């Protein structure tokens, strides 16, 4: 890939759908998702990698979308909160976040669910420490985390029977 002035042709996959867009590659992936694709489920808060609210899954790994440049998503497969379930069929994590009261103000919830999902997708038998580590960089100021951890454990049990 060579140089480019101004707009770039970005090809990537978002929630399983191919995306072709002319964008400035210097904007963040967070801005691209929210303002170009109007996928506003992904939140921005600290914009410095401290809070985790912008977490999405890129090629199977959780990352902070506020710290990835749109150009760096070239050719990548991106999964956001909009891609994992909907009103008719919630993802197990969404269902159990509701059931345990793990979402209160809800701002951190999409990031927490994506961080947890990345771990559950990659790890068929997480230890207690791995449940904690998966969300160690996601800040919630409402719940105190115990209901969140419970929701993730419950989702794990549902997914793995």
């Amino acid at each position, binding site marked *: 890939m060579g140089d480019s002035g101004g707009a770039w042709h970005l090809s990537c996959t978002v929630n399983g759908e191919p995306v072709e867009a002319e964008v400035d590659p210097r904007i963040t992936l967070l801005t691209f998702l929210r303002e170009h694709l109007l996928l506003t489920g992904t939140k921005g808060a600290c914009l410095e990698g401290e809070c985790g609210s912008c977490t999405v899954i890129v090629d199977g790994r959780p*990352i902070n979308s506020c710290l990835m440049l749109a150009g760096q998503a070239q050719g990548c497969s991106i999964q956001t909160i909009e891609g994992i379930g909907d009103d008719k069929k919630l993802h197990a994590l969404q269902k159990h976040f509701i059931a345990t009261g793990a979402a209160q103000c809800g701002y951190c919830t999409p990031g927490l669910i994506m961080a947890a999902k990345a771990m559950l997708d990659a790890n068929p038998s997480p230890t207690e420490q791995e449940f904690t580590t998966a969300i160690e960089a996601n800040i919630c100021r409402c719940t105190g985390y115990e209901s969140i951890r419970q929701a993730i454990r419950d989702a794990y049990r549902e997914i793995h029977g």
Partner: protein
Amino acid sequence: MFYQPTDMAEALRLRAELGPEVVTVCGGTDVVVAMNHGVARPEAFLDLSRVAGRDSVERVNGIYLLGGGVTFAQMAKLPVRALAEAARSVGGPQIRNVGTIAGNLGTASPAGDGSVALLALDAEVELSHVERGSRWVRLEEFFLDYKRTALQPDELITRVRFPSDFESVWYKIGKRGAVNISIVCCAIGRSPAGAYRIALGSVGPVPMRAMEAEAVLNGDSTDAAHRAVAYLADEVIERAAEAAELEAAPIDDQRSSARYREAMCRVLVRRLLRELRDG
């Protein structure tokens, strides 16, 4: 402008041709933070995230050779205790998945955990230029001053190497369990010949070696009999720990007072030397 080379030769050519206003980026965990906060407004980027082989980890003839794009997540899995523990202490999974060792070294923060661990492991960094070729620089000579390094604007950090046979230990004092910037961190490495290297983070303008403390342990390096390798007596450990406290040169800032940091240098050096002794 956004340059995204896929091989190192092309990356080096671009780095040499483009001016310093084109910012090198890979994980983005320093560069994009500065951009988001309006501290930096880069007009153009040289993105190294697609350069083939930059995340390679090799162990050849007793030497670890890491590509500059090796991430903290990768380093956390290496059987090199100080470096793995330092890597695990950085950020959270999201940061560790993208943050790289070349970025950690290039940013040259005094609180760079990976840099402190590598300093204790007697690491060297490879700085490469498309025409001048590569030069290996010891970390002591790489860190020049606060966030200033020996890297020239037309060079890239291409690899890092260090001996694979050091024992090492690590401890970091921070305010919480994750996404935790060091208040003080310390790494100690011990070579098979019994020479100690003590590195401290967040107690000076650059990651620093505690040379006075090392001298207490290593003595005259030509006289192996004087080395404390066989047995680190409590009294020897205490003298080394005191020397570390005296030679640390921290400042007061929002994370801690200078005095606390000095005191913690003594505590960490004492604790880690005992750990090396007692296993």
